[in-house]
């Protein structure tokens, strides 16, 4: 009869494997990413877990994704996910570096039913994500003088390109200036008013680091440059970015900030400093020598 006991133990193992497989079968995972990711700043991710099985529930499911910054691995436990049920989990991940990064991989696992074995799915990975340099509020001593002038009073209605205001359409207004999205949303004709062109304009100049500059210092200066750009955009300035890789034309608004951050995120430190080609025209400048920690400003 010992053979019978042995057979029972083996069958328990086999059943355990089958049930684990069943628990993970037809479990769909959809990842939700934050719109922006900044280095060293926790970003909130979301996972939507769907049990696609028609009749069977899944029990004791674990979700985990290692933290790239070495922090504790975010984990989630679902005791039961009913048939066709959808559950959501939000968690934070921190990326230690800027640039294109791969997510560590979300892993679904279970030890159901007996805790004898762990059955894991293949890690769920998505396309690489672009991590911007860390953006932080600038301290009082860190705001460049070029951004401290009282130029914001010039922010008024005009004929420039930036958006100043939205208002209801009045007969006689230029129909080309209708803001269609808002019109569609509200059901009433809404006009887009532009702002005065004479707003503050700064040129953010990034100089390549000198040979031997510490990588940490370069990263810190990139973060500073990103913070300056964010500060400038948020107070309404037009920002032009000049690096050895090229020039990003002056612009305003969150979309422009995105473009600046993208440039900064993919900046690769060259072996030797490259020369900068500054465009003609006088404007206020914020000059950052990467890795030198000696940000300076020149105005015209």
């Amino acid at each position: 009869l010992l053979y019978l006991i042995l057979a029972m133990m083996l069958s328990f193992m086999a059943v355990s494997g089958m049930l684990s497989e069943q628990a993970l079968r037809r479990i769909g995972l959809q990842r939700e990413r934050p719109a922006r990711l900044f280095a060293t700043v926790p970003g909130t991710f979301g996972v939507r877990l769907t049990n696609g099985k028609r009749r069977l529930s899944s029990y004791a499911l674990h979700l985990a994704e290692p933290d790239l910054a070495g922090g504790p691995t975010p984990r989630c436990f679902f005791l039961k996910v009913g048939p066709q049920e959808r559950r959501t989990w939000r968690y934070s991940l921190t990326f230690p570096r800027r640039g294109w990064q791969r997510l560590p991989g979300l892993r679904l696992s279970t030890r159901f039913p007996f805790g004898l074995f762990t059955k894991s799915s293949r890690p769920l990975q998505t396309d690489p994500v672009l991590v911007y340099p860390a953006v932080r509020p600038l301290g009082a001593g860190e705001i460049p003088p070029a951004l401290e002038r009282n130029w914001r009073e010039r922010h008024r209605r005009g004929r420039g390109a930036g958006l100043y205001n939205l208002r209801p359409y009045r007969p006689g207004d230029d129909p080309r200036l209708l803001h269609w999205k808002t019109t569609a949303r509200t059901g009433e004709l809404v006009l887009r008013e532009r702002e005065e062109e004479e707003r503050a304009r700064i040129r953010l100049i990034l100089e390549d680091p000198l040979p031997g500059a510490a990588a940490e210092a370069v990263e810190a200066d990139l973060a500073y440059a990103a913070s300056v750009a964010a500060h400038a955009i948020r107070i309404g300035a037009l920002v032009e970015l000049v690096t050895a890789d090229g020039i990003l034309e002056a612009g305003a608004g969150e979309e422009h900030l995105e473009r600046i951050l993208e440039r900064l995120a993919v900046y690769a430190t060259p072996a030797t400093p490259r020369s900068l080609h500054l465009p003609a025209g006088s404007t206020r400048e914020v000059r950052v020598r990467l890795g030198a920690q000696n940000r300076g400003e020149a105005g015209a």
Partner: protein
Amino acid sequence: MSFPFLFKLTLYGLTLDALVALYLTDIVTGPALVAVGATMLASWWVDRLHPFIPNFRKLWNLITIAFLVYAVLDLALLAESFMAAVTHLLLFLLTYKLYNARHHRDLLDIFLLTFLMLVSSCLFTTSFGFLLVFCLYIVLGVWGFMLFHLRREADLAMPEQSRAALAAPGFITSSLLYSSLGVVLTALILTLSIFFLMPRLGRTFLSLQGQVGSLSTGFTDRVELGIYGAIQKDPTIVMRVSFADEVRAPERLPHIRWRGVAFDQFDGRAWTLSERARSPIRRVRDGHAFQASSIVGVPFLSYEVVLEPTGTATLFGLHHVTAILGRLPEVTADGADGLALPAPPAGPVRYLATSQQERAPDAWRRQTVRAADYPQKIRDTYLQLPAITPRVQALALTLAAGSARPLEIARSVESYLSDNLRYDLDLGTDSGLDPIDDFLFERKSGNCEYFAAAMAILLRAAGVPARVVNGFQRGEWNDVGRFFAVRQRDAHSWVEVFTPGAGWVTFDPSPRAAFEAQAFGPSGRLAQHLDALRMRWHRYVVDYNVGDQALVATKLRTQSALLRGRLTIAWTSWSFAARRSLRTFWRNYGSAALLLAGLLGTLWVLGRRTKTGQMMASWLLRTRDRRTVSFYDRMLVILARRGWSLSPAVTPRELLASLLGRPQMHQTAAELIALYERVRFGGEMLTSADGARANLLLRELERAAK
């Protein structure tokens, strides 16, 4: 049923199951087991006991110390065996854990202890009841481990909410019950499959104690008269015997008696065997052991015996066993053709035996034999007589009537006894007289022992060598399992008479057939089914071995070869017929079929390449796309029936805005449109739950629109 209650119930169910498993082993007596079980069950309310016992932990520490002292004494002096002491320890540990289960580890220990109890019981029992205990353990074990795992995982992952989550009303659902039932069935099927397929590496003879059964006194070297009186009321099954397939109707075979031991000496009270020395019988390969040479011209009978452990080492078989096959330890034979093992087996013993069928020796009936014709050894041994009374001697001479034909004398004595004396199991009190004299002339009734003893004594007194044989009569034929179920109450004694020509010939003077027909009715159909199940349990589980596996493999191979052959023949004949039909069809309709195929091909190419075909394809695709959001189309149809504008330029949100005046419709349509947007533009899959919800909303919308 809530999770905590179900889990507790499963845990205690497993505990009780393990206790019953131990009960089957006889290691723990029934009353002791009831006491232990009650103590364990009382731990169900241990949480309520805590407030009344202030130093609960200290109390258990004291109990543990006391038990450790007892355990040492138990191991050294008290317990019947080492395993018995271990079992007592297991029982204490389980009780301790049930009263002190605080952590997951304690619960795991309880599972482990019940498992160890099951394992230890399987070493000591081969009872059919173990199958039930085992199946129940699988059911409860699967349940218990599953629930325990869920509880542990929940406690570890969400310590604060685990209790609430597990006790939530919707947690134990019917789907969980059904799926776990499926799991249990799968586990059972797998267990049985693995059990039968697992290669047997050998056979372990565990040093178990042989069971002392009531047969231990009936088949020894000395058997007192009257010992069968008690045995013959016991319905316990001693053995089951099935015949080989060649024997068409074993139940109709004549003269079936299961011979055990024969005795040659009678001292007036007890039968003994004078030649006590036992010689091992010859062993050959594959476990065959041949005992006796065969008699030419007499047919053979092969049968399989499954002997229960009833306390006797005797092996039973039909008259004149010529060969015996089985995984047996040494088999010995005594001077009167009795076969036996060295010791009473602890578990069931299975062996195949071959005997030669006994025939009525008509040719020898009229043979005249003088005293000098008997071999000296026969005369010395089988004509021995104790002091008998004169009237017994006179009766013997009267029945012999001066005949010199031993078989005729035997027939005469047999007839006298069976016709003039009454069969009775109630032997009354000992009168102090000579038992045979008392039986023949005073009481005139007795059981088979008295009949056999009286016949042997009368024959010897008449100068005919005779001996008494103890064994069993044929038993009850089980039509379901097709075997003879031989019970203790079938214990029987008869007589063998020696003639120089025919050898030992069987005579049975007991008129017990009529008595038994009145005393014991045939078993019911259900009882037969149960007994057949027990037989199979022993045959295919307890004693399943590598030989059986080889047999199954051979049968499978034979059957598969047969099947392959049949399939080949069927395929050959079918393909031949198909080819012939195809040729006929081609001859008659070949041109038309070609034309049709060409036409269809052309249409297909045109459909693929022309604009019309592409439009059809796109329409099909559109249909497929629409299928997922068809509920939206149905909503539009419902609204259109009620007069809402459905211009293609109207967006879902505009449509929704137009329903603002009908709040109920607006609410329903808003949910439908949100679902539509999620599926149509959000890239989400429409789950069946979503589909069901959409159908419900559509019905609501229809009602609201009326």
